[in-house]
Protein backbone atom coordinates (compact mmCIF):
# COMPACT_ATOMS: atom_id res chain seq x y z
CA UNK A 1 0.00 0.00 0.00
CA UNK A 2 1.22 3.49 -0.85
CA UNK A 3 2.78 5.59 1.86
CA UNK A 4 1.63 9.12 2.60
CA UNK A 5 3.45 11.75 4.62
CA UNK A 6 1.60 14.21 6.78
CA UNK A 7 2.26 16.48 9.74
CA UNK A 8 0.66 15.86 13.12
CA UNK A 9 1.26 18.45 15.84
CA UNK A 10 4.32 19.74 13.94
CA UNK A 11 5.87 16.26 13.59
CA UNK A 12 6.36 14.64 10.20
CA UNK A 13 4.63 11.26 10.17
CA UNK A 14 4.24 8.55 7.57
CA UNK A 15 1.08 6.50 7.20
CA UNK A 16 -0.42 3.96 4.85
CA UNK A 17 -2.94 5.16 2.32
CA UNK A 18 -6.45 4.27 3.42
CA UNK A 19 -5.74 4.63 7.12
CA UNK A 20 -7.92 7.02 9.04
CA UNK A 21 -6.43 9.92 10.97
CA UNK A 22 -7.40 8.51 14.35
CA UNK A 23 -5.33 5.36 13.82
CA UNK A 24 -2.30 7.36 12.75
CA UNK A 25 -2.63 9.85 15.59
CA UNK A 26 -2.85 7.04 18.14
CA UNK A 27 0.14 5.28 16.58
CA UNK A 28 2.08 8.42 17.52
CA UNK A 29 1.23 7.75 21.14
CA UNK A 30 -1.20 10.67 21.30
CA UNK A 31 -4.10 9.84 23.57
CA UNK A 32 -6.90 11.37 21.52
CA UNK A 33 -10.19 10.95 23.41
CA UNK A 34 -13.00 8.90 21.84
CA UNK A 35 -16.29 7.46 22.96
CA UNK A 36 -18.13 5.91 20.01
CA UNK A 37 -14.97 4.48 18.41
CA UNK A 38 -14.09 0.92 19.39
CA UNK A 39 -11.29 -1.19 17.97
CA UNK A 40 -12.75 -3.98 15.88
CA UNK A 41 -15.95 -2.13 14.94
CA UNK A 42 -16.67 0.15 11.99
CA UNK A 43 -16.24 3.87 12.56
CA UNK A 44 -19.28 6.02 13.20
CA UNK A 45 -18.06 9.60 13.70
CA UNK A 46 -20.90 10.12 16.14
CA UNK A 47 -19.45 11.43 19.39
CA UNK A 48 -17.09 14.00 17.77
CA UNK A 49 -14.63 13.81 20.66
CA UNK A 50 -11.81 12.89 18.27
CA UNK A 51 -12.15 16.16 16.34
CA UNK A 52 -8.92 17.73 15.07
CA UNK A 53 -7.98 20.85 13.15
CA UNK A 54 -6.87 20.32 9.55
CA UNK A 55 -5.00 23.22 7.98
CA UNK A 56 -6.94 24.87 5.16
CA UNK A 57 -10.33 23.90 6.55
CA UNK A 58 -12.33 26.02 8.99
CA UNK A 59 -14.42 23.01 9.99
CA UNK A 60 -13.20 20.55 12.57
CA UNK A 61 -12.77 17.00 11.30
CA UNK A 62 -13.72 13.86 13.23
CA UNK A 63 -10.43 12.00 12.85
CA UNK A 64 -12.02 8.51 12.95
CA UNK A 65 -13.83 9.17 9.67
CA UNK A 66 -11.17 11.29 7.96
CA UNK A 67 -8.74 9.54 5.63
CA UNK A 68 -5.07 10.52 5.70
CA UNK A 69 -3.90 12.64 2.79
CA UNK A 70 -0.47 13.56 1.50
CA UNK A 71 0.83 16.81 3.06
CA UNK A 72 -2.08 17.14 5.46
CA UNK A 73 -1.27 19.34 8.49
CA UNK A 74 -3.18 18.26 11.59
CA UNK A 75 -3.46 19.71 15.10
CA UNK A 76 -4.82 17.39 17.79
CA UNK A 77 -4.84 19.75 20.78
CA UNK A 78 -5.62 23.46 20.94
CA UNK A 79 -7.68 25.66 23.21
CA UNK A 80 -10.51 25.52 20.71
CA UNK A 81 -10.45 21.72 20.50
CA UNK A 82 -10.31 21.32 24.28
CA UNK A 83 -13.17 23.74 24.66
CA UNK A 84 -15.33 21.81 22.22
CA UNK A 85 -14.51 18.42 23.72
CA UNK A 86 -15.42 19.61 27.17
CA UNK A 87 -18.63 21.08 25.82
CA UNK A 88 -19.52 17.77 24.17
CA UNK A 89 -19.05 15.86 27.42
CA UNK A 90 -21.19 18.36 29.32
CA UNK A 91 -23.93 18.10 26.69
CA UNK A 92 -23.91 14.31 26.94
CA UNK A 93 -24.49 14.59 30.68
CA UNK A 94 -27.23 17.18 30.21
CA UNK A 95 -29.08 15.17 27.57
CA UNK A 96 -30.07 12.20 29.78
CA UNK A 97 -30.10 11.35 33.46
CA UNK A 98 -26.64 10.59 34.77
CA UNK A 99 -26.53 9.95 38.49
CA UNK A 100 -23.07 8.46 38.89
CA UNK A 101 -23.42 7.85 42.63
CA UNK A 102 -26.13 5.23 42.09
CA UNK A 103 -25.02 3.91 38.69
CA UNK A 104 -23.74 0.38 38.09
CA UNK A 105 -20.76 1.78 36.17
CA UNK A 106 -19.64 4.27 38.81
CA UNK A 107 -15.85 4.17 38.75
CA UNK A 108 -15.56 2.22 35.49
CA UNK A 109 -17.53 4.43 33.13
CA UNK A 110 -15.95 5.98 30.06
CA UNK A 111 -18.21 9.04 30.13
CA UNK A 112 -17.49 9.65 33.79
CA UNK A 113 -13.75 9.39 33.25
CA UNK A 114 -13.90 11.74 30.25
CA UNK A 115 -15.57 14.29 32.53
CA UNK A 116 -12.75 13.86 35.03
CA UNK A 117 -10.14 14.11 32.29
CA UNK A 118 -11.57 17.38 30.97
CA UNK A 119 -12.06 18.85 34.43
CA UNK A 120 -15.85 19.02 34.11
CA UNK A 121 -16.74 20.12 37.64
CA UNK A 122 -20.31 21.18 36.84
CA UNK A 123 -22.64 21.45 33.84
CA UNK A 124 -23.04 24.82 32.19
CA UNK A 125 -26.12 23.58 30.34
CA UNK A 126 -29.50 23.03 31.88
CA UNK A 127 -30.15 19.27 32.00
CA UNK A 128 -33.20 18.05 30.10
CA UNK A 129 -34.22 15.47 32.75
CA UNK A 130 -36.14 13.35 30.20
CA UNK A 131 -38.42 10.60 31.54
CA UNK A 132 -36.92 7.47 29.99
CA UNK A 133 -37.72 3.81 30.47
CA UNK A 134 -35.53 0.93 31.56
CA UNK A 135 -36.15 -2.39 29.83
CA UNK A 136 -35.39 -5.22 32.23
CA UNK A 137 -37.46 -7.81 30.39
CA UNK A 138 -34.50 -9.81 29.07
CA UNK A 139 -33.60 -12.77 31.25
CA UNK A 140 -29.95 -11.73 31.54
CA UNK A 141 -29.49 -8.09 30.60
CA UNK A 142 -30.97 -4.68 31.29
CA UNK A 143 -30.94 -1.53 29.17
CA UNK A 144 -31.37 1.74 31.05
CA UNK A 145 -31.97 4.49 28.50
CA UNK A 146 -31.24 7.13 31.14
CA UNK A 147 -27.52 6.38 30.81
CA UNK A 148 -27.26 5.84 27.05
CA UNK A 149 -25.03 8.20 25.04
CA UNK A 150 -26.15 6.80 21.66
CA UNK A 151 -22.63 5.77 20.71
CA UNK A 152 -24.11 2.77 18.85
CA UNK A 153 -21.29 0.47 19.89
CA UNK A 154 -23.98 -2.04 20.89
CA UNK A 155 -25.72 -1.72 17.53
CA UNK A 156 -22.47 -2.25 15.63
CA UNK A 157 -21.19 -5.18 17.67
CA UNK A 158 -24.57 -6.91 17.40
CA UNK A 159 -24.60 -6.42 13.64
CA UNK A 160 -20.94 -6.69 12.68
CA UNK A 161 -19.58 -9.23 15.15
CA UNK A 162 -22.53 -11.27 16.42
CA UNK A 163 -24.18 -10.91 13.01
CA UNK A 164 -27.81 -10.74 14.12
CA UNK A 165 -28.64 -7.00 14.17
CA UNK A 166 -31.15 -7.18 16.99
CA UNK A 167 -30.35 -3.63 18.03
CA UNK A 168 -30.84 -0.42 16.13
CA UNK A 169 -31.57 3.26 16.69
CA UNK A 170 -35.02 4.74 16.25
CA UNK A 171 -35.96 8.45 16.07
CA UNK A 172 -33.82 11.49 15.50
CA UNK A 173 -31.79 13.93 17.58
CA UNK A 174 -32.51 13.98 21.29
CA UNK A 175 -35.43 11.59 20.86
CA UNK A 176 -33.22 8.86 19.38
CA UNK A 177 -33.49 5.58 21.24
CA UNK A 178 -31.84 2.17 21.09
CA UNK A 179 -34.46 -0.44 20.17
CA UNK A 180 -34.65 -4.22 19.95
CA UNK A 181 -35.96 -5.60 16.67
CA UNK A 182 -38.96 -3.44 15.70
CA UNK A 183 -39.11 -1.64 19.03
CA UNK A 184 -40.26 -4.58 21.11
CA UNK A 185 -39.39 -5.44 24.69
CA UNK A 186 -36.01 -7.17 24.70
CA UNK A 187 -37.53 -10.36 26.02
CA UNK A 188 -39.71 -10.65 22.94
CA UNK A 189 -36.72 -10.54 20.58
CA UNK A 190 -36.60 -13.55 18.24
CA UNK A 191 -33.16 -12.58 16.96
CA UNK A 192 -31.17 -11.90 20.14
CA UNK A 193 -28.82 -14.79 20.93
CA UNK A 194 -28.19 -13.48 24.45
CA UNK A 195 -24.47 -13.37 23.64
CA UNK A 196 -23.92 -10.28 25.80
CA UNK A 197 -21.53 -8.55 23.39
CA UNK A 198 -23.59 -5.37 23.47
CA UNK A 199 -23.24 -5.26 27.25
CA UNK A 200 -19.48 -5.76 27.14
CA UNK A 201 -18.87 -2.89 24.73
CA UNK A 202 -21.26 -0.35 26.24
CA UNK A 203 -19.09 2.47 27.65
CA UNK A 204 -21.68 3.59 30.20
CA UNK A 205 -24.17 2.14 32.66
CA UNK A 206 -26.85 1.83 29.95
CA UNK A 207 -26.33 -1.89 29.37
CA UNK A 208 -25.51 -4.24 32.20
CA UNK A 209 -25.86 -7.79 33.37
CA UNK A 210 -28.81 -8.13 35.73
CA UNK A 211 -28.27 -8.06 39.43
CA UNK A 212 -24.89 -6.37 39.17
CA UNK A 213 -24.24 -4.18 42.14
CA UNK A 214 -23.52 -0.51 41.79
CA UNK A 215 -19.89 0.25 41.02
CA UNK A 216 -19.01 -3.41 40.50
CA UNK A 217 -19.26 -3.67 36.74
CA UNK A 218 -16.25 -4.50 34.68
CA UNK A 219 -16.80 -4.63 30.97
CA UNK A 220 -14.75 -6.05 28.11
CA UNK A 221 -14.55 -3.42 25.38
CA UNK A 222 -11.54 -5.29 23.98
CA UNK A 223 -13.79 -8.18 22.87
CA UNK A 224 -14.64 -7.05 19.29
CA UNK A 225 -10.96 -6.57 18.40
CA UNK A 226 -10.04 -9.98 19.82
CA UNK A 227 -12.91 -11.76 18.11
CA UNK A 228 -12.34 -10.08 14.76
CA UNK A 229 -8.60 -10.84 14.87
CA UNK A 230 -9.14 -14.43 15.95
CA UNK A 231 -11.56 -14.97 13.08
CA UNK A 232 -9.06 -13.53 10.64
CA UNK A 233 -6.43 -15.91 11.94
CA UNK A 234 -9.01 -18.69 11.85
CA UNK A 235 -8.14 -19.78 15.36
CA UNK A 236 -11.58 -21.37 15.79
CA UNK A 237 -11.45 -23.35 12.50
CA UNK A 238 -10.27 -26.87 13.24
Amino acid sequence: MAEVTLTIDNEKVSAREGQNLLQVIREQGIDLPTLCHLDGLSERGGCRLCVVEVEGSSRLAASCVTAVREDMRVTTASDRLLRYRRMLVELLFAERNHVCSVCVMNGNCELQSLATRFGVDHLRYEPLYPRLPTDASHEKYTIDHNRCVLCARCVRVCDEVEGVHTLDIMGRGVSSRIINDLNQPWRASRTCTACGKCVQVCPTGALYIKETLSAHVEKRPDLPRRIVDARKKRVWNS
Partner: protein
Amino acid sequence: MSSTPSGKIRLATVWLSGCSGCHMSFLDLDEQLLELNEHIQLVHGPLVDRKDFPPEVDVVLVEGAVNNEEQKEMAGILREQSRIVVALGDCAVTGNVPAMRNGLPVKNLLESVYPVEGGHEPPGLSSGSEVPRLLPAALPLHAVVPVDVFLPGCPPHARTIGSALKALLKGERVVLEQGMCRFG
Protein backbone atom coordinates in the same frame (compact mmCIF):
# COMPACT_ATOMS: atom_id res chain seq x y z
CA MET B 1 -8.19 36.47 53.66
CA SER B 2 -9.01 37.25 57.28
CA SER B 3 -12.04 38.98 58.58
CA THR B 4 -12.46 38.21 62.27
CA PRO B 5 -10.62 40.24 64.92
CA SER B 6 -8.66 37.06 65.65
CA GLY B 7 -7.60 36.95 61.98
CA LYS B 8 -9.63 33.79 61.42
CA ILE B 9 -11.67 32.98 58.33
CA ARG B 10 -15.40 32.88 58.94
CA LEU B 11 -16.57 29.53 57.58
CA ALA B 12 -20.21 28.45 57.34
CA THR B 13 -21.71 25.19 56.14
CA VAL B 14 -25.26 24.68 54.90
CA TRP B 15 -27.25 21.47 54.52
CA LEU B 16 -29.92 21.60 51.80
CA SER B 17 -31.34 18.47 50.08
CA GLY B 18 -28.50 16.06 50.67
CA CYS B 19 -27.89 13.01 52.83
CA SER B 20 -25.31 14.73 55.08
CA GLY B 21 -22.62 12.58 53.48
CA CYS B 22 -20.71 15.68 52.38
CA HIS B 23 -20.66 16.97 55.94
CA MET B 24 -19.45 13.53 57.05
CA SER B 25 -16.68 13.73 54.48
CA PHE B 26 -15.73 17.15 55.87
CA LEU B 27 -15.46 15.55 59.32
CA ASP B 28 -13.29 12.84 57.74
CA LEU B 29 -10.54 15.47 57.57
CA ASP B 30 -9.85 14.09 61.07
CA GLU B 31 -6.72 15.59 62.62
CA GLN B 32 -6.50 18.14 59.83
CA LEU B 33 -9.60 19.69 61.40
CA LEU B 34 -7.45 20.73 64.36
CA GLU B 35 -5.01 22.39 62.02
CA LEU B 36 -7.85 24.13 60.15
CA ASN B 37 -9.30 25.24 63.45
CA GLU B 38 -6.26 27.49 63.89
CA HIS B 39 -7.36 29.48 60.86
CA ILE B 40 -11.10 29.04 60.77
CA GLN B 41 -14.03 30.11 62.85
CA LEU B 42 -17.08 27.96 62.18
CA VAL B 43 -19.98 30.42 62.34
CA HIS B 44 -22.95 28.48 61.00
CA GLY B 45 -24.11 25.02 59.98
CA PRO B 46 -25.50 21.74 61.30
CA LEU B 47 -22.43 21.56 63.55
CA VAL B 48 -23.10 24.97 65.14
CA ASP B 49 -25.94 25.94 67.44
CA ARG B 50 -27.10 29.03 65.63
CA LYS B 51 -30.30 29.27 63.62
CA ASP B 52 -29.89 32.31 61.35
CA PHE B 53 -27.25 32.67 58.67
CA PRO B 54 -24.78 35.30 59.92
CA PRO B 55 -23.49 38.26 57.89
CA GLU B 56 -19.97 38.61 56.53
CA VAL B 57 -19.16 34.98 55.96
CA ASP B 58 -15.91 34.40 54.07
CA VAL B 59 -16.53 30.88 52.78
CA VAL B 60 -19.69 28.82 52.80
CA LEU B 61 -19.77 25.12 51.91
CA VAL B 62 -23.20 24.17 50.60
CA GLU B 63 -24.31 20.54 50.56
CA GLY B 64 -27.44 19.41 48.73
CA ALA B 65 -29.73 20.38 45.88
CA VAL B 66 -32.22 23.24 46.07
CA ASN B 67 -35.47 21.37 46.44
CA ASN B 68 -38.05 23.61 48.11
CA GLU B 69 -38.96 27.24 48.64
CA GLU B 70 -37.20 27.49 52.00
CA GLN B 71 -33.95 26.19 50.49
CA LYS B 72 -34.27 28.60 47.60
CA GLU B 73 -34.59 31.49 50.02
CA MET B 74 -31.63 30.15 52.00
CA ALA B 75 -29.56 30.01 48.81
CA GLY B 76 -30.29 33.70 48.23
CA ILE B 77 -29.34 34.62 51.79
CA LEU B 78 -26.10 32.66 51.83
CA ARG B 79 -25.07 34.14 48.50
CA GLU B 80 -25.84 37.66 49.69
CA GLN B 81 -23.91 37.24 52.93
CA SER B 82 -20.87 35.24 51.80
CA ARG B 83 -17.83 36.13 49.75
CA ILE B 84 -17.14 32.65 48.38
CA VAL B 85 -19.88 30.09 47.77
CA VAL B 86 -18.74 26.49 47.38
CA ALA B 87 -21.08 23.84 45.90
CA LEU B 88 -20.06 20.84 47.99
CA GLY B 89 -20.79 17.46 46.42
CA ASP B 90 -22.85 16.14 43.52
CA CYS B 91 -26.29 17.12 44.87
CA ALA B 92 -25.26 20.78 45.05
CA VAL B 93 -23.27 20.52 41.81
CA THR B 94 -25.68 18.59 39.54
CA GLY B 95 -28.86 17.86 41.52
CA ASN B 96 -27.76 14.19 41.74
CA VAL B 97 -30.15 11.84 43.59
CA PRO B 98 -32.71 14.49 44.66
CA ALA B 99 -33.07 15.46 40.97
CA MET B 100 -34.16 11.93 40.06
CA ARG B 101 -37.69 13.11 40.82
CA ASN B 102 -37.48 15.87 38.19
CA GLY B 103 -40.11 15.38 35.54
CA LEU B 104 -42.52 13.61 37.92
CA PRO B 105 -45.61 15.64 38.93
CA VAL B 106 -45.00 17.22 42.35
CA LYS B 107 -48.56 16.50 43.49
CA ASN B 108 -48.21 12.77 42.92
CA LEU B 109 -44.91 12.73 44.77
CA LEU B 110 -46.30 14.54 47.79
CA GLU B 111 -49.44 12.42 47.87
CA SER B 112 -47.44 9.24 47.96
CA VAL B 113 -45.32 10.53 50.84
CA TYR B 114 -48.05 12.27 52.87
CA PRO B 115 -51.29 10.29 52.58
CA VAL B 116 -54.15 12.78 53.09
CA GLU B 117 -57.86 12.34 53.60
CA GLY B 118 -60.01 12.79 50.50
CA GLY B 119 -60.06 16.22 48.95
CA HIS B 120 -57.29 17.79 51.04
CA GLU B 121 -54.10 18.82 49.37
CA PRO B 122 -50.85 17.33 50.66
CA PRO B 123 -48.49 19.55 52.67
CA GLY B 124 -45.71 21.08 50.58
CA LEU B 125 -47.88 21.58 47.51
CA SER B 126 -48.50 25.28 48.01
CA SER B 127 -46.83 28.03 50.02
CA GLY B 128 -48.09 28.73 53.49
CA SER B 129 -48.34 25.22 54.92
CA GLU B 130 -45.87 24.19 57.63
CA VAL B 131 -44.00 22.10 55.06
CA PRO B 132 -42.06 24.33 52.63
CA ARG B 133 -43.42 24.19 49.09
CA LEU B 134 -41.60 21.67 46.93
CA LEU B 135 -40.15 23.26 43.77
CA PRO B 136 -41.20 21.79 40.40
CA ALA B 137 -37.65 20.40 40.09
CA ALA B 138 -34.64 19.86 42.37
CA LEU B 139 -31.95 22.24 41.14
CA PRO B 140 -28.18 22.42 41.33
CA LEU B 141 -27.08 25.40 43.41
CA HIS B 142 -25.67 27.31 40.42
CA ALA B 143 -29.12 27.23 38.78
CA VAL B 144 -30.32 29.43 41.66
CA VAL B 145 -27.37 31.66 42.66
CA PRO B 146 -23.86 32.22 41.26
CA VAL B 147 -21.37 29.67 42.62
CA ASP B 148 -17.63 30.31 42.90
CA VAL B 149 -16.20 26.84 43.48
CA PHE B 150 -17.50 23.38 42.55
CA LEU B 151 -16.39 20.27 44.45
CA PRO B 152 -18.01 17.27 42.73
CA GLY B 153 -18.15 13.79 44.25
CA CYS B 154 -20.71 11.76 46.17
CA PRO B 155 -19.33 12.64 48.61
CA PRO B 156 -16.25 14.62 47.62
CA HIS B 157 -13.23 13.00 49.23
CA ALA B 158 -12.01 14.60 52.45
CA ARG B 159 -8.72 15.27 50.63
CA THR B 160 -10.62 17.23 47.99
CA ILE B 161 -12.37 19.34 50.60
CA GLY B 162 -9.11 19.83 52.50
CA SER B 163 -7.14 20.95 49.48
CA ALA B 164 -9.90 23.34 48.39
CA LEU B 165 -10.09 24.90 51.86
CA LYS B 166 -6.32 25.26 52.01
CA ALA B 167 -6.29 27.11 48.70
CA LEU B 168 -9.14 29.37 49.82
CA LEU B 169 -7.38 30.13 53.11
CA LYS B 170 -4.37 31.33 51.17
CA GLY B 171 -6.63 33.39 48.94
CA GLU B 172 -5.73 31.22 45.95
CA ARG B 173 -7.96 29.92 43.21
CA VAL B 174 -9.13 26.34 43.77
CA VAL B 175 -7.62 24.03 41.17
CA LEU B 176 -8.53 20.40 41.77
CA GLU B 177 -5.76 17.88 41.20
CA GLN B 178 -6.23 15.43 38.33
CA GLY B 179 -8.61 12.73 39.52
CA MET B 180 -10.14 14.79 42.34
CA CYS B 181 -12.70 16.25 39.97
CA ARG B 182 -15.07 13.30 39.63
CA PHE B 183 -18.81 12.82 39.69
CA GLY B 184 -20.03 9.90 41.80
